[in-house]
């Protein structure tokens, strides 16, 4: 690495990892870097102060170490906290204006940026490294009054909304990685669905990590106003890398009275090679607040990638009669590790939550479901149902279940079930007898095992996810 380029603030650094030239903040985490990020994004003062407050808090926080998958210590001073495609400053007006290399990359990822792909009904806010580059389908959305843009744009155009809701679900005083994100977040998506509007299409963002050594700190904020509905898709890929890459995103969802948010994720980031070298650290904080009465938040996730996945998409059920749901498939193979689950915090009356978690571990991997169901004394007549099943493939992997169950209300019920087993020989035998080879048989059985969760995904994702499940388990049989 070229030493000279590291220390000069506001100096452009020319890329080395792709052919796209990157603007980079110098390596390291300090107030100057935070000011640099804030400045380059032309942020108002309150946001800079907010970031600096988070940074102040970060300095006294300790990195957590209670998780099951351990990882080598991250040197936070050795990371870049900002990188952006260079020509971002002269904002592209049309697709043709974009860097052709960038378009090519997106094409490989299959993102329907082209106008022709409008028929797919997907509006895409594509994030390359840390800055949103293009947003499509704006017209249809604007007609409905829906705001779907990058969070930096939202800060400029809708500062009131951002100021009102940013950090209300994940405050800057939260845990280490969330606070780190608050201090240095670069970009992400912002969605606002106005009162009574049902979003006519699935909103989708593709995240992509590309620049070497760049921690990705996305910030997503989704607000569903009274009586509205939105379904949001998130999917990720990352190219081959040798050193581990940190990804600490924050996702905040807020559902007001009678609103519903459905958030689906398919995550297939680079998991490292067969010997467990490289791969992404996926330490994401996702939290939804059912603020209004009768609101609903539903998380669906298919986690197949990353060297380490460590996240607990949660619901805070504050409004009366609110509903929280969590559907998850987590697959680990080779040396992958996952510690994932959910938190359902019941505060309002008549709140309901449902957790369906399917874990599959193969090879030398290790998978943990960790979840919390907490029914507070005031959450009268609340209900929770939890089911977590684990499937083990091979005798070198691990599957663990660690639920925390707290019931403080005598009129509320919690039911929790968990099983751990392997694929039954009988089922395999039956499938093979019908002419399937062992790999196909396992694929079929695993898809059946996951079906309950796969059904929750929107059409576009379900197909991809089903394929992913098969791909992730390749080579784990026999």
């Amino acid at each position, binding site marked *: 690495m070229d030493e000279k380029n590291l220390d000069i603030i506001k100096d452009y650094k020319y890329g080395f990892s792709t052919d796209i030239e990157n603007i980079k903040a110098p390596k390291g985490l300090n107030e100057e870097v935070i000011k640099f990020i804030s400045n380059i994004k032309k942020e108002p003062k309150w946001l800079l102060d907010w970031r600096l407050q988070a940074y102040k808090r970060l300095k006294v926080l300790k990195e957590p170490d*209670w998780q099951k998958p351990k990882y080598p210590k991250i040197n936070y001073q050795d990371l870049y906290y900002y990188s952006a495609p260079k020509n971002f400053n002269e904002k592209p007006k049309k697709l043709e204006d974009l860097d052709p290399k960038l378009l090519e990359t997106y094409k490989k990822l299959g993102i329907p940026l082209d106008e022709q792909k409008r028929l797919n009904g997907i509006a895409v806010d594509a994030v390359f490294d840390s800055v949103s580059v293009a947003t499509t389908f704006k017209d249809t959305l604007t007609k409905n009054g829906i705001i779907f843009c990058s969070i930096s744009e939202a800060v400029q155009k809708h500062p009131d909304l951002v100021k009102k809701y940013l950090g209300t679900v994940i405050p800057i005083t939260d845990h280490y990685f969330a606070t780190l994100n608050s201090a240095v977040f670069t970009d992400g998506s912002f969605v606002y669905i106005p009162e009574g509007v049902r979003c006519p299409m699935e909103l989708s963002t593709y995240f992509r990590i590309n620049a070497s050594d760049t921690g990705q700190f996305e910030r997503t904020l989704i607000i569903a106003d009274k009586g509205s509905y939105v379904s949001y898709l998130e999917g990720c890929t990352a190219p081959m890398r040798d050193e581990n890459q940190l990804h600490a995103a924050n996702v905040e969802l807020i559902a007001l009275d009678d609103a519903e948010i459905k958030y689906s994720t398919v995550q297939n980031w680079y998991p490292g090679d067969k010997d467990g070298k490289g791969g992404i650290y996926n330490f994401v904080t996702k939290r939804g607040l059912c603020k209004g009465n009768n609101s609903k938040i539903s998380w669906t996730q298919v986690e197949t990638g990353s060297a380490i996945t460590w996240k607990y998409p949660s619901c805070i059920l504050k409004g009366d009669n609110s509903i929280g749901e969590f559907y998850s498939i987590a697959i680990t193979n080779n040396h992958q590790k996952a510690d994932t689950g959910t938190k359902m915090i019941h505060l309002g009356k008549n709140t309901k939550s449902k957790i369906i978690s399917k874990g599959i571990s193969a090879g030398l991997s290790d998978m943990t479901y960790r979840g919390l169901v907490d029914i507070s*004394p005031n959450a009268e007549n609340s209900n929770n149902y939890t089911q977590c099943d*684990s499937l*083990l*493939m*091979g*005798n*070198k*992997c*691990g*599957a*663990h*279940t*660690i*639920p*925390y*169950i*707290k*019931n*403080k*209300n*005598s*009129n*509320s*019920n*919690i*039911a*929790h*079930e*968990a*099983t*751990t*087993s*392997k694929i039954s020989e009988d089922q395999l035998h039956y499938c093979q007898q019908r002419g399937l080879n062992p790999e196909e048989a396992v694929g079929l059985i695993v898809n059946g095992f996951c079906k309950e969760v796969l059904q929750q995904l929107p059409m576009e994702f379900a197909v991809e996810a089903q394929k992913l499940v098969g791909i992730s388990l390749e080579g784990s049989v026999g």
Partner: protein
Amino acid sequence: MENKIKIDFDKTFKNYSSNDELGFKKNNLENFIKEGLPGRKLESWKFSDLNQIINKNIGELNFYIDPSKENLIDNTLIIKDFDHNKIVFINGKVEELDFSFEDKDKVKILKEFEISTKIKSKNSLLNLNNAFCKNFYKINISKNYTMNKPLIIYHVSTNNISSTTLNSQLNFILEENSSLKIVDIYEDKSEKNFINIFYSFILKENAILKNFKIDKLQNSNIKYSYNNIDQSKNSVSETFILSNGSKFLKNEINCNLNGQYSSAFINGVFSLDTDKHHEIRTSVNHLVENTKSYQLIKSVLDDKSKSVYQGKIYVSPDAQKTDGYQLSKCILLDKNTEFNAKPELEIYADDVKCSHGSASGSLNENSIFYLRSRGLSYKQAKKLLISGFLLDVIEKITDEEIKSFIKKTMELNQ
């Protein structure tokens, strides 16, 4: 606390000459001073912060017990329901060891200190216990010997002590084909003490251990009890816990299934009211092939009480064909009650059958309606449902005599 504990330690053991035992005790004392009483920061004490509980209910602890005071065994405390052997602890000190129903040469009682047989656990309360326990009795049940009568261990505390820690420890070795039944009974005349009990069991091939822990008498003491069970091939251990009388009680069972075809059963009942806070924490370690464990914990909570169940099933990579099961259920009767559970599975082998379940909630309104339509009052209906709920666990007890004794103690009739 640091100075006080050192002074009390020196006072207690001033007559001891320097030897292995005193050295061992001093080591443990230092460890305890370093670690202190366990608090919320430790994962295993997450739901019950002992440090806080002791501070709130007892205040500063004494560690010194005046040895000159005579402790007479109060015969009215002795159970008359069935013949039994007995060990009587009074204020943490063994006052009587009576095995008169057994062959003298089949039950050996050893008093010598032996460092090799000590429980190995990273637990500051074990350090405290090791430092202050006066006698490390070792009871050895000979090969092929089945005890004629059960052994009752009375844990008595007298009303002339308060704010004191009482430490007791027993080690049992069950040789091949032997069998032992133990009933633990707490008889507290004292208020506001911290009672700290450690048992270690080594089960050789085909040995059978049954341990029934009965905490029935209402008292304001804080208690901690730890069982370490090491099992060899074909051995069986059965533990039953009735958690009811004390202000705070935590029972911890650590069971290592080291031999094939060994099995462990842990059943527990919480029946709590008035601000009580009880916990059962189990850790069953399946270390070899073909082992089995079963846990059933039920709790009924009334009037601001709180129960905690932390159960862990660990399956090592070698422990194929493991069968592990865990179920915890709770009925919350009062608005201010709380049930916390952490049923944990940690599994590294694939050919296993492991599952757990946990359910908590209020009494089933439909069942109450049904019973009331049959002419029962609300109170009767409630009582019947609760008895039925708890009897499910009691019926798992495999010893008829003790089962009916427990039913009588709990005032549960079929």
